[in-house]
Protein backbone atom coordinates (compact mmCIF):
# COMPACT_ATOMS: atom_id res chain seq x y z
CA UNK A 1 0.00 0.00 0.00
CA UNK A 2 1.28 3.45 -0.96
CA UNK A 3 1.45 6.01 1.83
CA UNK A 4 2.17 9.71 1.97
CA UNK A 5 4.19 10.51 5.03
CA UNK A 6 6.21 13.31 6.59
CA UNK A 7 9.47 11.50 7.21
CA UNK A 8 12.14 12.53 9.68
CA UNK A 9 15.68 12.72 8.33
CA UNK A 10 18.06 10.56 10.34
CA UNK A 11 21.20 11.43 8.38
CA UNK A 12 22.36 13.00 5.15
CA UNK A 13 25.94 12.76 3.90
CA UNK A 14 27.85 13.46 0.70
CA UNK A 15 29.44 10.07 -0.09
CA UNK A 16 31.10 11.11 -3.39
CA UNK A 17 31.18 14.34 -5.38
CA UNK A 18 27.53 15.54 -5.51
CA UNK A 19 26.31 12.07 -4.47
CA UNK A 20 24.20 12.16 -1.31
CA UNK A 21 23.15 9.35 1.00
CA UNK A 22 19.92 10.19 2.78
CA UNK A 23 18.39 8.05 5.53
CA UNK A 24 14.89 8.73 6.83
CA UNK A 25 12.43 7.20 9.26
CA UNK A 26 9.04 6.16 7.83
CA UNK A 27 6.18 3.88 8.87
CA UNK A 28 5.77 2.78 5.26
CA UNK A 29 9.10 0.92 5.35
CA UNK A 30 6.93 -2.06 6.34
CA UNK A 31 5.25 -1.86 2.95
CA UNK A 32 8.47 -2.21 0.93
CA UNK A 33 8.37 -5.61 -0.74
CA UNK A 34 11.40 -5.78 -3.05
CA UNK A 35 14.75 -4.13 -3.72
CA UNK A 36 14.46 -1.62 -6.56
CA UNK A 37 11.24 0.07 -5.49
CA UNK A 38 11.31 3.87 -5.33
CA UNK A 39 9.74 6.82 -3.54
CA UNK A 40 8.45 10.17 -4.77
CA UNK A 41 9.74 13.16 -2.80
CA UNK A 42 8.29 16.64 -2.55
CA UNK A 43 11.42 18.76 -2.32
CA UNK A 44 9.92 22.25 -1.97
CA UNK A 45 7.66 23.53 0.77
CA UNK A 46 5.99 25.85 -1.73
CA UNK A 47 5.04 25.40 -5.37
CA UNK A 48 8.42 25.59 -7.08
CA UNK A 49 9.65 23.12 -8.10
CA UNK A 50 6.19 21.63 -8.28
CA UNK A 51 6.54 17.96 -9.10
CA UNK A 52 7.89 15.26 -6.82
CA UNK A 53 11.28 13.65 -7.49
CA UNK A 54 11.43 9.87 -8.00
CA UNK A 55 14.38 8.39 -6.09
CA UNK A 56 15.16 4.71 -5.65
CA UNK A 57 15.48 3.00 -2.30
CA UNK A 58 19.06 1.78 -1.83
CA UNK A 59 18.52 -0.12 1.42
CA UNK A 60 15.95 -0.49 4.17
CA UNK A 61 15.75 -1.62 7.76
CA UNK A 62 12.27 -2.75 8.76
CA UNK A 63 13.23 -3.23 12.41
CA UNK A 64 14.07 0.45 12.83
CA UNK A 65 11.56 1.71 10.23
CA UNK A 66 14.31 3.39 8.25
CA UNK A 67 15.35 3.45 4.63
CA UNK A 68 18.20 4.97 2.68
CA UNK A 69 18.36 6.64 -0.72
CA UNK A 70 21.37 7.72 -2.74
CA UNK A 71 20.90 10.46 -5.30
CA UNK A 72 22.94 12.88 -7.38
CA UNK A 73 22.59 16.58 -6.65
CA UNK A 74 22.07 17.90 -10.14
CA UNK A 75 19.12 20.21 -10.74
CA UNK A 76 16.97 22.57 -8.73
CA UNK A 77 15.03 19.84 -6.92
CA UNK A 78 17.90 17.65 -5.77
CA UNK A 79 19.87 20.77 -4.75
CA UNK A 80 17.01 21.71 -2.41
CA UNK A 81 16.84 18.14 -1.12
CA UNK A 82 20.57 18.15 -0.36
CA UNK A 83 20.08 21.18 1.90
CA UNK A 84 18.03 19.16 4.41
CA UNK A 85 19.70 18.01 7.59
CA UNK A 86 18.98 15.52 10.40
CA UNK A 87 15.72 16.11 12.26
CA UNK A 88 14.04 17.89 9.34
CA UNK A 89 10.83 16.50 7.87
CA UNK A 90 10.29 15.71 4.20
CA UNK A 91 7.08 14.73 2.40
CA UNK A 92 7.54 11.31 0.80
CA UNK A 93 5.11 9.15 -1.18
CA UNK A 94 5.97 5.46 -1.23
CA UNK A 95 6.86 2.74 -1.66
CA UNK A 96 6.22 2.83 -5.41
CA UNK A 97 6.64 0.44 -8.32
CA UNK A 98 7.80 -3.14 -8.63
CA UNK A 99 11.36 -4.04 -7.74
CA UNK A 100 13.85 -6.76 -8.69
CA UNK A 101 12.55 -10.35 -8.36
CA UNK A 102 14.98 -12.07 -5.99
CA UNK A 103 13.31 -15.45 -6.53
CA UNK A 104 14.56 -15.70 -10.11
CA UNK A 105 17.90 -17.00 -8.87
CA UNK A 106 18.55 -19.90 -6.47
CA UNK A 107 21.01 -20.50 -3.66
CA UNK A 108 24.35 -21.60 -5.08
CA UNK A 109 23.76 -19.85 -8.40
CA UNK A 110 25.52 -16.65 -9.48
CA UNK A 111 23.88 -13.27 -9.95
CA UNK A 112 25.63 -10.48 -11.82
CA UNK A 113 24.62 -7.00 -10.65
CA UNK A 114 25.52 -4.29 -13.15
CA UNK A 115 25.11 -0.62 -12.26
CA UNK A 116 25.91 2.60 -14.03
CA UNK A 117 26.33 5.88 -12.13
CA UNK A 118 23.26 6.85 -10.17
CA UNK A 119 21.70 3.51 -11.23
CA UNK A 120 24.00 1.74 -8.76
CA UNK A 121 22.07 2.41 -5.48
CA UNK A 122 19.09 0.01 -5.79
CA UNK A 123 21.51 -2.85 -6.47
CA UNK A 124 22.85 -2.53 -2.93
CA UNK A 125 19.70 -3.81 -1.21
CA UNK A 126 19.39 -6.44 -3.95
CA UNK A 127 22.92 -7.66 -3.25
CA UNK A 128 22.18 -7.83 0.46
CA UNK A 129 19.03 -9.90 -0.08
CA UNK A 130 20.55 -12.24 -2.66
CA UNK A 131 23.55 -12.88 -0.41
CA UNK A 132 21.22 -13.65 2.50
CA UNK A 133 19.54 -16.40 0.49
CA UNK A 134 22.86 -17.98 -0.50
CA UNK A 135 23.25 -16.60 -4.02
CA UNK A 136 26.80 -15.81 -5.14
CA UNK A 137 26.83 -12.14 -6.09
CA UNK A 138 29.25 -10.34 -8.42
CA UNK A 139 29.09 -6.58 -8.96
CA UNK A 140 30.19 -4.51 -11.92
CA UNK A 141 29.78 -0.81 -11.25
CA UNK A 142 30.53 1.90 -13.78
CA UNK A 143 31.19 5.59 -13.06
CA UNK A 144 32.34 8.65 -15.02
CA UNK A 145 35.44 9.34 -12.97
CA UNK A 146 37.14 8.58 -9.65
CA UNK A 147 35.40 11.36 -7.69
CA UNK A 148 31.99 9.91 -8.62
CA UNK A 149 32.69 6.42 -7.24
CA UNK A 150 30.70 5.41 -4.17
CA UNK A 151 29.83 2.31 -2.11
CA UNK A 152 32.75 0.18 -3.38
CA UNK A 153 33.54 -1.00 0.15
CA UNK A 154 29.87 -1.68 0.91
CA UNK A 155 29.43 -3.85 -2.19
CA UNK A 156 32.70 -5.70 -1.49
CA UNK A 157 31.16 -7.03 1.73
CA UNK A 158 28.78 -9.13 -0.34
CA UNK A 159 30.92 -10.22 -3.29
CA UNK A 160 33.51 -9.49 -5.94
CA UNK A 161 33.22 -5.91 -7.13
CA UNK A 162 34.64 -4.56 -10.38
CA UNK A 163 34.74 -0.80 -10.86
CA UNK A 164 35.05 0.90 -14.23
CA UNK A 165 35.50 4.60 -14.98
CA UNK A 166 35.02 6.19 -18.38
CA UNK A 167 38.24 8.20 -18.04
CA UNK A 168 40.26 5.41 -16.42
CA UNK A 169 40.97 7.47 -13.29
CA UNK A 170 39.87 4.56 -11.08
CA UNK A 171 39.40 0.82 -11.60
CA UNK A 172 39.31 -0.40 -15.17
CA UNK A 173 39.08 2.18 -17.97
CA UNK A 174 35.97 1.81 -20.09
CA UNK A 175 32.41 0.65 -19.68
CA UNK A 176 30.76 -2.04 -17.59
CA UNK A 177 30.00 -3.97 -20.79
CA UNK A 178 33.77 -4.48 -21.31
CA UNK A 179 34.04 -6.25 -17.94
CA UNK A 180 30.88 -8.37 -17.96
CA UNK A 181 31.94 -10.07 -21.21
CA UNK A 182 34.46 -12.05 -19.18
CA UNK A 183 32.05 -13.11 -16.41
CA UNK A 184 29.71 -16.05 -16.11
CA UNK A 185 26.32 -15.85 -14.39
CA UNK A 186 22.85 -17.37 -14.06
CA UNK A 187 20.90 -14.15 -13.77
CA UNK A 188 21.76 -10.51 -14.47
CA UNK A 189 20.17 -7.51 -12.75
CA UNK A 190 20.95 -4.01 -13.98
CA UNK A 191 20.12 -0.35 -13.48
CA UNK A 192 21.69 2.65 -15.19
CA UNK A 193 21.67 4.82 -18.30
CA UNK A 194 19.55 3.63 -21.22
CA UNK A 195 22.47 3.04 -23.66
CA UNK A 196 24.01 0.70 -21.08
CA UNK A 197 20.72 -1.19 -20.62
CA UNK A 198 20.34 -1.49 -24.38
CA UNK A 199 23.85 -2.89 -24.80
CA UNK A 200 23.27 -5.45 -22.05
CA UNK A 201 19.90 -6.49 -23.42
CA UNK A 202 21.42 -7.03 -26.87
CA UNK A 203 24.46 -8.91 -25.57
CA UNK A 204 22.46 -11.34 -23.40
CA UNK A 205 19.22 -11.98 -25.28
CA UNK A 206 19.57 -15.70 -24.42
CA UNK A 207 20.02 -15.08 -20.68
CA UNK A 208 17.79 -14.18 -17.76
CA UNK A 209 18.13 -10.38 -17.45
CA UNK A 210 16.16 -7.81 -15.41
CA UNK A 211 16.43 -4.09 -16.15
CA UNK A 212 15.39 -1.12 -14.06
CA UNK A 213 14.30 1.78 -16.29
CA UNK A 214 14.30 5.49 -15.76
CA UNK A 215 11.84 7.93 -17.36
CA UNK A 216 10.56 11.42 -16.60
CA UNK A 217 7.54 10.99 -14.35
CA UNK A 218 4.56 13.07 -13.37
CA UNK A 219 2.42 11.40 -10.74
CA UNK A 220 4.51 8.29 -9.98
CA UNK A 221 1.39 6.18 -9.43
CA UNK A 222 0.24 5.40 -12.98
CA UNK A 223 -2.38 8.09 -13.54
CA UNK A 224 -0.72 10.65 -15.81
CA UNK A 225 0.70 8.46 -18.60
CA UNK A 226 3.96 10.44 -18.72
CA UNK A 227 6.34 7.48 -18.35
CA UNK A 228 4.91 4.88 -20.72
CA UNK A 229 6.97 2.67 -22.98
CA UNK A 230 5.90 0.49 -25.87
CA UNK A 231 6.01 -3.27 -25.64
CA UNK A 232 6.19 -3.94 -29.37
CA UNK A 233 7.65 -2.44 -32.54
CA UNK A 234 4.52 -3.12 -34.55
CA UNK A 235 3.07 0.23 -35.59
CA UNK A 236 -0.48 -0.99 -35.02
CA UNK A 237 0.23 -2.49 -31.63
CA UNK A 238 -0.30 0.23 -29.06
CA UNK A 239 0.19 -1.92 -25.98
CA UNK A 240 2.36 -0.28 -23.34
CA UNK A 241 3.70 -0.43 -19.81
CA UNK A 242 4.07 2.40 -17.33
CA UNK A 243 7.56 2.67 -15.86
CA UNK A 244 6.25 3.98 -12.53
CA UNK A 245 3.53 1.46 -11.74
CA UNK A 246 4.26 -1.59 -14.00
CA UNK A 247 8.05 -1.17 -13.55
CA UNK A 248 10.53 0.29 -13.00
CA UNK A 249 11.98 -3.24 -13.20
CA UNK A 250 11.14 -5.28 -16.31
CA UNK A 251 12.37 -8.57 -17.70
CA UNK A 252 14.61 -7.88 -20.73
CA UNK A 253 12.45 -7.84 -23.85
CA UNK A 254 9.25 -7.02 -21.98
CA UNK A 255 9.37 -3.39 -23.11
CA UNK A 256 11.17 -1.52 -25.88
CA UNK A 257 14.02 0.59 -24.57
Amino acid at each position, binding site marked *: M*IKKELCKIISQEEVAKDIFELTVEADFVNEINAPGQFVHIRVAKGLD*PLLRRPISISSFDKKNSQFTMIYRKEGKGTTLLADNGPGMLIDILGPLGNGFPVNEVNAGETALLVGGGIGVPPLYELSKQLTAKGVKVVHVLGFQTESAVFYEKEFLEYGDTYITTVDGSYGKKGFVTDVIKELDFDCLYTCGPTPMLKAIEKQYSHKKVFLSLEERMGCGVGA*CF*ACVCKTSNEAKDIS*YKKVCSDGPVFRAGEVLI
Partner: protein
Amino acid sequence: MSRLNIQLPGLNLKNPIMPASGCFGFGREYSQFYDLSKLGAIMIKATTVEPRFGNPTPRVAETSSGMLNAIGLQNPGLEKVLSNELPWLSQYDVPIIANVAGSLEEDYIEVAEHISKAANVHALELNISCPNVKTGGIAFGTIPEVAKQLTRKVKEVSEVPVYVKLSPNVTNIVEMAKAVEDGGADGLTMINTLVGMRLDLKTGKPILANRTGGLSGPAIKPVALRMIYEVSQAVNIPIIGMGGIESAEDVIEFFYAGASAVAVGTANFVDPFVCPTIIDELPMLLDQLGYEHISECRGRSWQEHEQLTYHRA
Protein backbone atom coordinates in the same frame (compact mmCIF):
# COMPACT_ATOMS: atom_id res chain seq x y z
CA MET B 1 -21.98 18.84 3.28
CA SER B 2 -25.12 20.85 2.48
CA ARG B 3 -22.93 23.95 2.41
CA LEU B 4 -21.10 22.65 -0.63
CA ASN B 5 -23.76 21.03 -2.82
CA ILE B 6 -24.21 22.50 -6.29
CA GLN B 7 -26.75 21.80 -9.03
CA LEU B 8 -25.56 22.13 -12.61
CA PRO B 9 -27.06 20.80 -15.85
CA GLY B 10 -27.01 17.01 -15.51
CA LEU B 11 -24.97 17.19 -12.33
CA ASN B 12 -26.13 16.96 -8.78
CA LEU B 13 -22.80 17.62 -7.04
CA LYS B 14 -22.40 16.91 -3.31
CA ASN B 15 -19.49 19.33 -3.51
CA PRO B 16 -18.03 21.38 -6.36
CA ILE B 17 -14.65 19.61 -6.41
CA MET B 18 -13.70 17.16 -9.14
CA PRO B 19 -10.44 15.90 -10.60
CA ALA B 20 -9.76 17.32 -14.08
CA SER B 21 -9.58 15.16 -17.15
CA GLY B 22 -6.16 13.70 -17.89
CA CYS B 23 -4.93 14.12 -14.34
CA PHE B 24 -6.79 11.23 -12.78
CA GLY B 25 -6.83 8.44 -15.39
CA PHE B 26 -10.09 6.57 -14.93
CA GLY B 27 -9.83 6.80 -11.16
CA ARG B 28 -8.26 3.41 -10.43
CA GLU B 29 -4.88 4.73 -9.25
CA TYR B 30 -6.39 7.25 -6.84
CA SER B 31 -8.92 4.76 -5.46
CA GLN B 32 -6.04 3.24 -3.47
CA PHE B 33 -5.72 6.54 -1.59
CA TYR B 34 -9.34 7.40 -0.75
CA ASP B 35 -13.01 6.61 -1.42
CA LEU B 36 -13.84 8.18 -4.80
CA SER B 37 -17.46 8.69 -3.66
CA LYS B 38 -16.15 11.64 -1.68
CA LEU B 39 -15.65 13.63 -4.89
CA GLY B 40 -18.25 15.94 -6.41
CA ALA B 41 -17.68 14.32 -9.81
CA ILE B 42 -14.89 12.78 -11.85
CA MET B 43 -13.77 14.03 -15.26
CA ILE B 44 -12.33 10.91 -16.83
CA LYS B 45 -9.45 10.80 -19.29
CA ALA B 46 -10.25 11.82 -22.85
CA THR B 47 -11.81 9.03 -24.86
CA THR B 48 -11.43 8.62 -28.63
CA VAL B 49 -13.14 6.12 -30.97
CA GLU B 50 -9.99 4.03 -31.45
CA PRO B 51 -7.32 3.31 -28.83
CA ARG B 52 -4.42 5.78 -28.92
CA PHE B 53 -0.84 5.32 -27.75
CA GLY B 54 -0.11 9.04 -27.68
CA ASN B 55 3.19 10.85 -28.16
CA PRO B 56 6.76 9.60 -27.71
CA THR B 57 8.56 10.31 -24.41
CA PRO B 58 9.66 12.57 -22.77
CA ARG B 59 6.07 13.64 -22.32
CA VAL B 60 6.49 15.94 -19.33
CA ALA B 61 8.83 18.78 -18.44
CA GLU B 62 8.83 20.92 -15.35
CA THR B 63 8.50 24.71 -15.34
CA SER B 64 8.42 27.28 -12.55
CA SER B 65 5.33 26.45 -10.45
CA GLY B 66 3.96 24.31 -13.23
CA MET B 67 4.56 21.60 -15.77
CA LEU B 68 4.31 20.97 -19.49
CA ASN B 69 2.73 17.81 -20.79
CA ALA B 70 2.38 16.30 -24.22
CA ILE B 71 0.75 12.95 -23.51
CA GLY B 72 -1.23 13.01 -26.75
CA LEU B 73 -4.61 11.68 -25.59
CA GLN B 74 -3.41 8.17 -24.78
CA ASN B 75 -6.50 6.10 -24.00
CA PRO B 76 -7.83 2.58 -24.49
CA GLY B 77 -10.57 3.64 -26.94
CA LEU B 78 -14.35 3.93 -26.68
CA GLU B 79 -15.09 0.20 -26.54
CA LYS B 80 -12.77 -0.48 -23.60
CA VAL B 81 -13.88 2.64 -21.72
CA LEU B 82 -17.48 1.42 -22.05
CA SER B 83 -16.73 -2.19 -21.17
CA ASN B 84 -14.04 -1.79 -18.48
CA GLU B 85 -13.59 1.69 -17.08
CA LEU B 86 -17.13 3.02 -16.67
CA PRO B 87 -18.53 -0.24 -15.16
CA TRP B 88 -15.63 -0.25 -12.69
CA LEU B 89 -16.37 3.37 -11.72
CA SER B 90 -20.06 2.55 -11.16
CA GLN B 91 -19.19 1.04 -7.75
CA TYR B 92 -18.76 4.64 -6.56
CA ASP B 93 -21.52 7.10 -5.80
CA VAL B 94 -20.10 9.81 -8.05
CA PRO B 95 -21.28 11.30 -11.34
CA ILE B 96 -18.88 10.91 -14.26
CA ILE B 97 -18.16 13.63 -16.79
CA ALA B 98 -16.83 11.93 -19.91
CA ASN B 99 -14.20 13.87 -21.86
CA VAL B 100 -14.84 13.34 -25.58
CA ALA B 101 -11.99 13.80 -28.08
CA GLY B 102 -11.30 13.12 -31.73
CA SER B 103 -9.71 14.23 -34.99
CA LEU B 104 -12.80 14.54 -37.18
CA GLU B 105 -16.31 15.74 -36.48
CA GLU B 106 -17.68 12.22 -36.86
CA ASP B 107 -15.24 10.92 -34.22
CA TYR B 108 -16.65 13.30 -31.63
CA ILE B 109 -20.20 12.38 -32.62
CA GLU B 110 -19.56 8.67 -32.38
CA VAL B 111 -17.91 8.85 -28.95
CA ALA B 112 -20.57 11.27 -27.65
CA GLU B 113 -23.47 9.16 -28.86
CA HIS B 114 -22.26 5.97 -27.19
CA ILE B 115 -20.59 7.23 -24.05
CA SER B 116 -23.57 9.45 -23.14
CA LYS B 117 -25.70 6.30 -22.84
CA ALA B 118 -23.59 4.88 -19.99
CA ALA B 119 -25.59 4.97 -16.76
CA ASN B 120 -22.97 6.78 -14.68
CA VAL B 121 -22.06 9.37 -17.31
CA HIS B 122 -24.04 12.45 -16.29
CA ALA B 123 -22.44 14.95 -18.64
CA LEU B 124 -19.96 15.22 -21.49
CA GLU B 125 -16.94 17.46 -21.68
CA LEU B 126 -16.25 18.22 -25.32
CA ASN B 127 -12.48 18.39 -25.70
CA ILE B 128 -11.95 20.89 -28.49
CA SER B 129 -8.83 22.26 -26.88
CA CYS B 130 -6.12 19.61 -26.57
CA PRO B 131 -2.89 21.25 -27.76
CA ASN B 132 -1.02 17.97 -28.15
CA VAL B 133 -2.63 16.24 -31.10
CA LYS B 134 -1.71 17.10 -34.66
CA THR B 135 -5.16 17.00 -36.23
CA GLY B 136 -8.52 17.96 -34.81
CA GLY B 137 -8.61 18.81 -31.14
CA ILE B 138 -7.43 22.36 -30.97
CA ALA B 139 -8.57 23.32 -34.51
CA PHE B 140 -12.13 22.90 -33.26
CA GLY B 141 -11.27 25.07 -30.30
CA THR B 142 -9.86 28.12 -32.06
CA ILE B 143 -12.43 28.93 -34.77
CA PRO B 144 -15.75 30.05 -33.24
CA GLU B 145 -17.99 28.93 -36.10
CA VAL B 146 -16.38 25.46 -36.23
CA ALA B 147 -16.74 25.07 -32.46
CA LYS B 148 -20.38 26.11 -32.63
CA GLN B 149 -21.20 23.60 -35.38
CA LEU B 150 -19.45 20.76 -33.55
CA THR B 151 -21.26 21.61 -30.32
CA ARG B 152 -24.60 21.58 -32.15
CA LYS B 153 -23.93 18.19 -33.74
CA VAL B 154 -22.77 16.63 -30.49
CA LYS B 155 -25.80 18.06 -28.69
CA GLU B 156 -28.05 16.35 -31.23
CA VAL B 157 -26.74 12.89 -30.34
CA SER B 158 -25.89 13.25 -26.66
CA GLU B 159 -28.30 11.95 -24.04
CA VAL B 160 -26.72 14.08 -21.32
CA PRO B 161 -25.79 17.77 -21.05
CA VAL B 162 -22.72 18.88 -22.95
CA TYR B 163 -19.99 21.09 -21.47
CA VAL B 164 -17.42 22.48 -23.87
CA LYS B 165 -13.79 22.70 -22.73
CA LEU B 166 -12.32 25.98 -23.91
CA SER B 167 -8.74 26.60 -24.94
CA PRO B 168 -6.90 29.65 -23.61
CA ASN B 169 -4.82 29.67 -26.81
CA VAL B 170 -7.16 32.07 -28.60
CA THR B 171 -7.26 35.81 -29.17
CA ASN B 172 -10.78 36.26 -27.87
CA ILE B 173 -12.09 33.64 -25.46
CA VAL B 174 -15.40 35.45 -24.94
CA GLU B 175 -16.17 35.07 -28.62
CA MET B 176 -15.46 31.32 -28.40
CA ALA B 177 -17.63 30.98 -25.31
CA LYS B 178 -20.55 32.79 -26.95
CA ALA B 179 -20.21 30.67 -30.08
CA VAL B 180 -20.51 27.37 -28.22
CA GLU B 181 -23.33 28.77 -26.11
CA ASP B 182 -25.09 29.57 -29.39
CA GLY B 183 -24.36 26.01 -30.49
CA GLY B 184 -26.38 24.77 -27.51
CA ALA B 185 -23.67 24.02 -24.93
CA ASP B 186 -25.10 23.43 -21.46
CA GLY B 187 -21.94 24.64 -19.76
CA LEU B 188 -18.27 25.46 -20.16
CA THR B 189 -15.15 24.03 -18.63
CA MET B 190 -12.10 26.26 -18.69
CA ILE B 191 -9.25 26.55 -19.10
CA ASN B 192 -7.32 23.83 -20.89
CA THR B 193 -3.52 24.14 -20.92
CA LEU B 194 -1.49 26.96 -22.49
CA VAL B 195 0.91 25.95 -25.24
CA GLY B 196 4.49 26.20 -24.05
CA MET B 197 8.01 24.92 -24.49
CA ARG B 198 11.22 24.18 -22.58
CA LEU B 199 14.70 23.64 -23.95
CA ASP B 200 17.49 21.40 -22.76
CA LEU B 201 20.51 23.40 -21.60
CA LYS B 202 23.03 20.90 -22.96
CA THR B 203 21.51 20.03 -26.33
CA GLY B 204 19.63 23.25 -27.06
CA LYS B 205 16.66 21.15 -28.18
CA PRO B 206 13.12 20.95 -26.77
CA ILE B 207 12.82 18.67 -23.72
CA LEU B 208 9.48 17.29 -24.88
CA ALA B 209 9.59 14.80 -27.74
CA ASN B 210 6.51 16.58 -29.12
CA ARG B 211 8.54 19.84 -28.89
CA THR B 212 5.62 21.81 -27.43
CA GLY B 213 3.26 20.89 -24.63
CA GLY B 214 0.43 22.18 -22.49
CA LEU B 215 1.35 24.29 -19.48
CA SER B 216 -0.62 23.56 -16.30
CA GLY B 217 -0.30 24.07 -12.57
CA PRO B 218 -0.28 27.18 -10.34
CA ALA B 219 1.64 29.11 -13.02
CA ILE B 220 -1.54 29.43 -15.13
CA LYS B 221 -3.98 30.30 -12.34
CA PRO B 222 -4.06 34.08 -13.04
CA VAL B 223 -4.80 33.43 -16.72
CA ALA B 224 -7.65 31.07 -15.83
CA LEU B 225 -9.12 33.54 -13.35
CA ARG B 226 -9.04 36.40 -15.84
CA MET B 227 -10.69 34.32 -18.56
CA ILE B 228 -13.43 32.99 -16.25
CA TYR B 229 -14.00 36.56 -15.03
CA GLU B 230 -14.56 37.72 -18.62
CA VAL B 231 -16.56 34.76 -19.88
CA SER B 232 -18.86 34.36 -16.88
CA GLN B 233 -20.14 37.90 -17.41
CA ALA B 234 -20.78 37.30 -21.10
CA VAL B 235 -22.66 33.98 -21.14
CA ASN B 236 -25.66 32.50 -19.35
CA ILE B 237 -24.34 28.97 -18.93
CA PRO B 238 -22.35 27.75 -15.91
CA ILE B 239 -18.57 27.37 -15.86
CA ILE B 240 -16.55 24.60 -14.26
CA GLY B 241 -13.27 26.41 -13.60
CA MET B 242 -9.79 24.91 -13.66
CA GLY B 243 -6.19 26.02 -13.98
CA GLY B 244 -3.69 25.61 -11.16
CA ILE B 245 -6.10 24.98 -8.29
CA GLU B 246 -4.35 23.39 -5.31
CA SER B 247 -6.09 24.72 -2.18
CA ALA B 248 -9.49 25.65 -0.72
CA GLU B 249 -8.50 29.32 -1.10
CA ASP B 250 -7.97 28.79 -4.82
CA VAL B 251 -11.46 27.28 -5.09
CA ILE B 252 -13.04 30.37 -3.54
CA GLU B 253 -11.03 32.61 -5.87
CA PHE B 254 -12.39 30.70 -8.88
CA PHE B 255 -15.93 31.08 -7.53
CA TYR B 256 -15.34 34.81 -7.08
CA ALA B 257 -14.22 34.97 -10.73
CA GLY B 258 -17.48 33.37 -11.82
CA ALA B 259 -17.07 29.58 -11.71
CA SER B 260 -19.92 27.41 -10.37
CA ALA B 261 -17.70 24.39 -9.67
CA VAL B 262 -14.02 23.61 -10.11
CA ALA B 263 -11.70 20.89 -11.29
CA VAL B 264 -8.30 20.07 -9.81
CA GLY B 265 -5.66 18.85 -12.25
CA THR B 266 -1.89 18.94 -11.82
CA ALA B 267 -2.17 19.20 -8.02
CA ASN B 268 -3.23 15.51 -7.92
CA PHE B 269 0.29 14.60 -9.06
CA VAL B 270 1.87 16.63 -6.29
CA ASP B 271 -0.49 15.44 -3.57
CA PRO B 272 -2.74 12.45 -4.33
CA PHE B 273 -4.98 13.51 -1.42
CA VAL B 274 -5.49 17.08 -2.66
CA CYS B 275 -9.18 16.71 -3.64
CA PRO B 276 -10.44 15.23 -0.33
CA THR B 277 -8.22 17.68 1.58
CA ILE B 278 -9.81 20.66 -0.21
CA ILE B 279 -13.31 19.23 0.36
CA ASP B 280 -12.57 18.88 4.08
CA GLU B 281 -11.10 22.37 4.37
CA LEU B 282 -13.78 24.30 2.48
CA PRO B 283 -16.38 24.51 5.29
CA MET B 284 -13.78 26.01 7.66
CA LEU B 285 -12.79 28.55 5.04
CA LEU B 286 -16.45 29.44 4.42
CA ASP B 287 -16.75 30.05 8.19
CA GLN B 288 -13.71 32.31 8.17
CA LEU B 289 -15.00 34.31 5.23
CA GLY B 290 -18.56 34.47 6.57
CA TYR B 291 -20.48 32.51 3.96
CA GLU B 292 -23.22 29.99 4.65
CA HIS B 293 -22.99 28.31 1.27
CA ILE B 294 -20.24 28.21 -1.31
CA SER B 295 -22.61 29.42 -4.02
CA GLU B 296 -22.65 32.85 -2.31
CA CYS B 297 -19.08 33.30 -3.52
CA ARG B 298 -19.93 32.95 -7.17
CA GLY B 299 -19.26 36.01 -9.31
CA ARG B 300 -18.46 38.37 -6.44
CA SER B 301 -15.61 39.83 -8.48
CA TRP B 302 -18.07 41.46 -10.84
CA GLN B 303 -21.39 41.49 -8.96
CA GLU B 304 -22.64 44.53 -7.09
CA HIS B 305 -22.96 43.51 -3.45
CA GLU B 306 -22.66 44.94 0.00
CA GLN B 307 -19.40 44.24 1.78
CA LEU B 308 -19.72 41.23 4.04
CA THR B 309 -18.16 41.53 7.45
CA TYR B 310 -15.04 39.46 7.66
CA HIS B 311 -15.32 36.72 10.29
CA ARG B 312 -19.08 37.28 10.48
CA ALA B 313 -19.58 33.74 11.78
